[in-house]
């Protein structure tokens, strides 16, 4: 904590921030220099030296600061289990006397430098013969000579340079996906081959103006074509038929049904013509349809993958955790947490990953996971699951499994907390059911019409109709729009529980603000102490106690006392009373800190926060008071005036006393309703009251005290300062530094509906135009086969680009 504080201080005075040449982190007060480069720690320096020695400094040229921070103390005992023969057998793919093949998953690789380094391992470790990276799967395939290097040595090397492999002793699933992709490519290859050769052999048919009437030539070609078309019908288009058949069995006509019908019609008709000799058939068209459809789908899947909005390893998750590195404590975002790191969890903080208890008394509340409110005591060495919350003094844990953001998000969306207001809605528009029926109706009408008008046009018209119609926007636009919007929000540090929160956010017309911690900042607050002078020991006691709590006032007081080199304070019976204060027995001194009523006679008073005054009581002697000056977040005034202009109803509910009224009126204007001395229950009632008047309420608060009100409001946003306080009652988590962008967020959410509507109209237009050409027989079935996947790709692209464009316009 102190090192971090010091580095901030140094940076401010020198105003030069030195970044590490290897990993790009800002170097603290400890700067290691070698060869005119600066490094943040000896770990980064050692990796640099290793690369330099082996002429691999190209690593630094390919990408800026590509390195991954080494873990400091390198504990080589960690990989001792890799010496065990049975374990080795589970992990490797092949082994002989001279060669061992193994594939490792390295999720940390993120750039071309990583590929460069991982493929040049043989230059660092001669035992490694060859290594090949598959960047998309984030895997590296290594061949090494077991006589010169062992599996353990290879893994230790990887960990040393910062690319620790993710070793799981369970079966990998990646093999299945690559086999699936191969099958698709086989089908496309065969279809392409047959299609192009059929076209070539159809030339006589195209050019038959009398030149080629050598008997038998045309017929022979027809039979060649017939033969070539069989693999297309039975192999390449098999998936389409299977999918249509599956849908049919469930009495449901899916998108593949009309396409399957079109293919069958074309091929059957052509075979009939060839066999009876009445014509040449349409197999060039038919195989073309299959080929283009398959290519279209393959391309579609690639596009979807690149626009995919899974919140992955690197995306922002507003959870911070205190980690112990090199003996110093540091607060880092949870995404940077790695296995076997030591973390410190304070009172009311959530444990972000499965971990083992190392130090301290653990009292874990699993209500977030299981709904059980009773806290469970855990002893040293016991496993504590992610999602549990610590009640009591700080504990130290060793992380044994990586943080799974999807798991935490899943818990968040858990039934226990949903009060049905923001359920995940299915994005399949109700109209899609009728789409296929309508399409078949049009097809039948076309057949009937042409049968009586010009029978020759029946076939091209009907097949074109069946193929060109695309219900894509019904299925895709909402999903991709909201998915992209979630990503944009996430980039701007507003993390939504799920996509339906966007729709709720768009409907908001009233905003309720909490004061402390939401519109005030806890970091840069000015703290004054008034009272009896405190000895260093007493200050250390206050610091230790306030450190246990994540309340903004506790943090501020803790930061204001410099860390002393004194021995550790023995802390017992720590308890935090939400909204009132803290109490503990430290070094046999009974200490109470908090609001005046709490400290003096412990009568529960409805004062929400401890006000701006924190009183300190030691062994029943009133030592003094910490006065905390509120500092309001930047940009607040402008945002409030924007919101006011747009007609939002604005309210402030504070548990504090009304000393701040003047400052608040200054920011919010005279018309805003500002209420003080609000208890959590009063805040909840206030929101209910607003909702009764048909207001759609957005509440911004901190997760702890405002949980009830947050859950009650239509959208509840918990403001976080990168702490490990996770509030499941909220629908969204917003980083404190971005609170002043609230008006932009709401405006962006409102535009979401516009985007979906626009793509919907676009798709309907496409269908109308396409079908109008198709029914007239003017659209060749092959062209229709190209248009259909093209239209779904274009809808996805349109929706994603448009929403990104609007995001940029709104300043997000």
């Amino acid at each position, binding site marked *: 904590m102190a090192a971090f504080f010091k580095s901030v201080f140094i940076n401010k005075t020198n105003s030069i921030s030195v970044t590490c040449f290897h990993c790009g982190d800002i170097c603290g007060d400890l700067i290691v220099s070698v060869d005119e480069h600066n490094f943040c720690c000896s770990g980064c320096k050692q990796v640099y030296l290793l690369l330099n020695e082996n*002429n691999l400094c*190209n690593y630094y040229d*390919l990408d800026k600061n590509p390195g991954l921070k080494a873990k400091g103390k390198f504990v080589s005992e960690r990989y001792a289990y890799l010496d065990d023969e049975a374990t080795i057998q589970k992990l490797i793919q092949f082994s002989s006397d001279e060669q061992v093949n193994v594939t490792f998953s390295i999720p940390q690789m993120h750039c*071309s430098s990583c*590929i*460069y380094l991982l*493929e*040049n391992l043989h*230059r660092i470790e001669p035992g490694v013969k060859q290594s*090949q*990276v*598959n*960047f*998309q*799967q984030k895997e590296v395939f290594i061949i090494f000579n077991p006589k010169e290097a062992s599996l353990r040595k290879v893994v230790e090397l990887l960990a040393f340079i910062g690319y620790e492999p993710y070793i799981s002793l369970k079966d990998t699933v990646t093999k299945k996906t*690559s086999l699936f*992709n*191969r099958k698709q*490519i*086989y089908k496309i*290859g*065969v279809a392409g*081959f047959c299609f192009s*050769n059929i076209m*070539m*052999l159809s030339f006589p048919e195209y050019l038959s103006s009398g030149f*080629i009437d*050598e008997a038998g*030539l045309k017929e*022979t*070609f027809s039979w*060649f074509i017939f033969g070539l078309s069989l693999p297309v019908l039975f192999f390449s288009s098999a998936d389409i038929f299977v999918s249509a058949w599956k849908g049919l069995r469930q009495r449901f006509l899916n998108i593949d049904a009309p396409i399957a019908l079109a293919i069958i019609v074309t091929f059957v008709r052509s075979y009939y013509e060839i066999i009876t000799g009445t014509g040449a058939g349409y197999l060039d068209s038919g195989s073309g349809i299959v080929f283009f459809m398959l290519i279209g789908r393959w391309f579609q899947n690639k596009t979807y993958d690149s626009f995919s909005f899974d919140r992955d390893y690197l995306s922002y998750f507003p959870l911070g955790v205190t980690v112990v590195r090199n003996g110093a404590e540091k607060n880092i975002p949870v995404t940077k947490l790695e296995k076997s790191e030591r973390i410190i969890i304070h009172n009311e903080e959530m444990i972000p990953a499965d971990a083992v208890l190392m130090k301290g008394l653990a009292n874990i509340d699993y209500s977030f996971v299981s709904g059980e409110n009773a806290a469970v005591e855990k002893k040293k060495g016991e496993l504590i699951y992610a999602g549990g919350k610590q009640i009591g003094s700080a504990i130290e844990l060793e992380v044994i499994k990586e943080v799974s953001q999807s798991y935490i998000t899943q818990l968040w969306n858990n039934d226990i907390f949903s009060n049905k207001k923001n359920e995940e809605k299915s994005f399949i528009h109700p109209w899609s059911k009728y789409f296929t029926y309508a399409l078949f109706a049009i097809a039948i009408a076309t057949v009937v019409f042409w049968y009586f008008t010009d029978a020759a046009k029946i076939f091209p018209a009907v097949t074109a109709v069946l193929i060109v119609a695309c219900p894509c926007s019904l299925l895709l636009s909402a999903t991709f729009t909201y998915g992209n919007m979630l990503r944009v929000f996430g980039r701007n540090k507003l993390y939504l529980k799920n996509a339906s929160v966007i729709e709720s956010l768009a409907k908001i017309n009233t905003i309720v603000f909490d004061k402390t911690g939401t519109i005030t900042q806890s970091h840069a607050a000015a703290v004054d102490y008034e009272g009896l002078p405190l000895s260093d020991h007493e200050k250390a006691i206050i610091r230790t106690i306030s450190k246990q709590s994540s309340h903004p006032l506790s943090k501020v007081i803790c930061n204001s006392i410099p860390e002393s080199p004194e021995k550790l304070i023995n802390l017992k019976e720590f308890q935090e009373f939400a909204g009132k204060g803290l109490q503990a027995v430290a070094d046999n001194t009974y200490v109470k800190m908090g609001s005046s009523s709490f400290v003096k006679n412990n009568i529960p008073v409805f004062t929400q926060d401890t006000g701006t005054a924190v009183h300190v009581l030691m062994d029943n002697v009133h030592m003094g008071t910490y006065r905390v000056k509120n500092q309001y977040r930047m940009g607040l005034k402008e945002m409030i005036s924007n919101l006011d202009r747009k007609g939002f109803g604005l309210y402030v509910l504070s548990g504090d006393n009304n000393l701040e009224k003047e400052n608040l009126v200054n920011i919010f204007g005279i018309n805003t309703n500002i209420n003080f001395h609000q208890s959590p229950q009063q805040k909840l009632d206030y929101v209910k009251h607003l909702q009764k008047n048909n207001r759609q309420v957005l509440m911004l608060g901190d997760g702890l005290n405002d949980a009830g009100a947050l859950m009650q409001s239509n959208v509840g946003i918990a403001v976080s300062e990168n702490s490990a306080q996770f509030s499941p009652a909220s629908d969204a988590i917003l980083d404190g530094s971005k609170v002043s962008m609230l008006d932009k967020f709401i405006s962006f959410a409102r535009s979401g509906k516009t985007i979906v509507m626009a793509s919907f109209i676009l798709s309907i237009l496409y269908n109308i135009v396409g079908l109008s050409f198709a029914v007239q027989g003017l659209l060749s079935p092959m062209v229709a086969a190209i248009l259909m996947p093209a239209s779904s790709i274009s809808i996805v692209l349109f929706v994603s680009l448009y929403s990104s464009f609007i995001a940029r316009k709104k300043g997000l």
Partner: protein
Amino acid sequence: MSAFFILIGFSILVAGTFLAAFLFSVKKGQFDDDYTPSIRMLFDEPEKTKATSTKSVKTITQTKK
């Protein structure tokens, strides 16, 4: 015109060979990763001259001692 039969037959044979080669290469996994090769081709060859020059420097210092 009967040459056509032979020509067409032969061309389909050749095309078929290419198809077989394609299917074979897919089976061998050459198309599994279509992204990394594009990065890999941009890497430079390791500089062999630097290695030899450091070696010669080393020998010089050794003789000096």
